[in-house]
């Protein structure tokens, strides 16, 4: 799809809100869906499902390890289990349980980490899940999706419900720009090209997709034609789209709201090292935690804006 090239994006709902609505809608069509939360239901928005289907909702208290174990047992009995918590708590706290009780037996547990990234803002770094993509992709057999806006989140939830095995979905706290129309489709393993260009490719996921589109507009004014790929399917990643981008544009920049090691950048670099080595630039948090502040201030201070993507793109093009 092509996104309108010059009009600024309007702000829409948060991806966690869209997740909550999509999960509630899933409850109507999927009687096997059960939801378990660790007492953050009104933040993760699983409360919408809980209100509609109280018999199929369990709040196990502030106990992430047990949350995952209970989900494992329910899934072993044929349920499709959705669990949610803050990305900062769910994966780091219950990683052994996700590995041993979900990934290893390959059960149908859909794990949703909300409030991911530094756009949590004022609550500070203890609440910011900035390593969840690395942790989730390292769980064998997990598929990992990072939607860019509300419409794509709904499509990701529907797609995850149709998959047999475990899935991790990353959602954010703040309202985010609208990129996709309602009813858009999402296919695991497929990137979507949002803008054509042949000088450089900007690969992004989550909130950095909107920033990449803005960066492409700024680059266009400087005479640089940037292709934009939304890599919402982080695992499996669309290696064909990456190879095409490498061969046709000769340079890539990978932008994500995540630490440097083990995120989308690592995955893209690994794929292209094998298929089509080209210069790659990286826009991410590096190897540090953030701090309290407004999301906008933090994105600027920690290098995750359109301007940062533009600078990295120009530097990477010079390395062609």
């Amino acid at each position: 799809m092509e996104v309108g090239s010059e009009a600024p994006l309007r702000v829409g709902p948060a991806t966690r809100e869209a997740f909550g609505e999509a999960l509630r809608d899933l409850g109507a069509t999927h009687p096997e869906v059960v939801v378990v939360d660790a007492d953050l239901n009104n933040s993760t928005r699983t409360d919408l499902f809980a209100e509609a289907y109280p018999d199929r909702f369990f709040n196990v208290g502030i106990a992430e390890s047990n949350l995952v174990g209970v989900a494992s047992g329910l899934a072993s009995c044929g349920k499709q289990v959705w669990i949610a918590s803050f990305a900062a708590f769910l994966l780091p706290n219950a990683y052994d349980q996700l590995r041993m009780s979900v990934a290893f037996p390959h059960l149908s547990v859909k794990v949703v980490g909300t409030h991911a990234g530094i756009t949590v803002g004022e609550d500070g770094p203890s609440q910011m899940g900035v390593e969840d993509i690395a942790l989730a992709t390292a769980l064998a057999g997990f598929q990992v999706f990072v939607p860019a806006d509300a419409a794509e989140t709904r499509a990701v939830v529907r797609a995850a419900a149709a998959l047999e095995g475990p899935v991790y979905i990353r959602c954010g706290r703040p309202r985010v720009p609208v990129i996709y129309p309602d009813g858009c489709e999402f296919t695991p393993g497929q990137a979507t090209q949002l803008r054509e260009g042949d000088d450089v490719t900007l690969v992004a996921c989550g909130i950095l997709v909107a920033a990449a589109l803005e960066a492409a507009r700024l680059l266009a004014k400087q005479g640089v034609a940037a292709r934009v790929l939304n890599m919402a399917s982080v695992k499996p990643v669309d290696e064909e789209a990456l190879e095409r981008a490498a061969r046709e544009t000769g340079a890539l920049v990978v932008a994500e709201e995540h630490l440097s090691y083990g995120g989308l950048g690592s995955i893209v670099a690994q794929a292209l090292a094998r298929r089509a080595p080209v210069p790659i630039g990286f826009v991410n948090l590096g190897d540090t935690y953030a701090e309290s502040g407004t999301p906008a201030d933090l994105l600027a201070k920690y290098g995750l804006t359109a301007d940062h993507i533009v600078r990295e793109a120009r530097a990477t093009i010079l390395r062609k």
Partner: protein
Amino acid sequence: MAVAIAPAPAGVSLEALAEKARLLRKRIITMTTQAGSGHPSSSLSTVEVLTALYFGGVLRYDPRNPRWPERDRFILSKGHAAPALYAALAEAGFFPVALLRSLRKAGSPLEGHPNMRVLPGVEASTGSLGQGLSIGVGHALAARLDNRLYRVYVLTGDGENDEGQIWEAAMAAAKYHLDQLTCIIDHNGFQQTGPVPEVMPLVPLADKWRAFGWHARDIDGHDLGQVLDALHAAARVHGQPTAIIAHTRKGRGVSFVENDYTYHGKALTPEEADRALEELGWK
């Protein structure tokens, strides 16, 4: 719908069960010595509990239909006692006894710790301690959602009670009044590096479980009559889950292994295995 199968009739004699227990001990020692590794002493302490569950008319199961939805569930949370589970499952007919010889070998479904993906009768993949009770809570909640009457039994180690997740699960089971859930604690008194009271004191263990909302009782975990009585009594408790603290001896049945924690995670040598089988009356 399949008929509930209780492989041992209600009138099964304690003598017959004791003979079954003696057979399981032989299998545990033989398979771990053949494998050259494993946890025979942690397996030997569980034998009467497993014998009562699988052959004492407690668990309803159908080895020809291992995923029978109405079956009772047994989850071995202390996954390192896999040899005991494998011996019981083979004896119950889930797979041929001859398969026990493949324990821990590449390509065998009898892995070092239980893997539900490859072996019929295994309800949960375990081996990272502390996780089985939560899984049991999930099975019990699923029974409620599906209006099924099956019961769920989880066997943990005593050292495993050090894990915080056990107590998270205990609280959840009490919250949801899961009276179809029973947790048996194999209280053999030793963990990997020493006696339980030295590594991490658990006393008063039964009171801890009671404080978490469970019906709890202590029994002699090697007295088949007491084990059967406690398991049957658990089914009559309403509104709360039951914890059975089975006081056992690590390495039970083999004098030179009993209560010697340095045997944790070690198979007997062929010579030691011969002596052990002789003590058990197999030679």
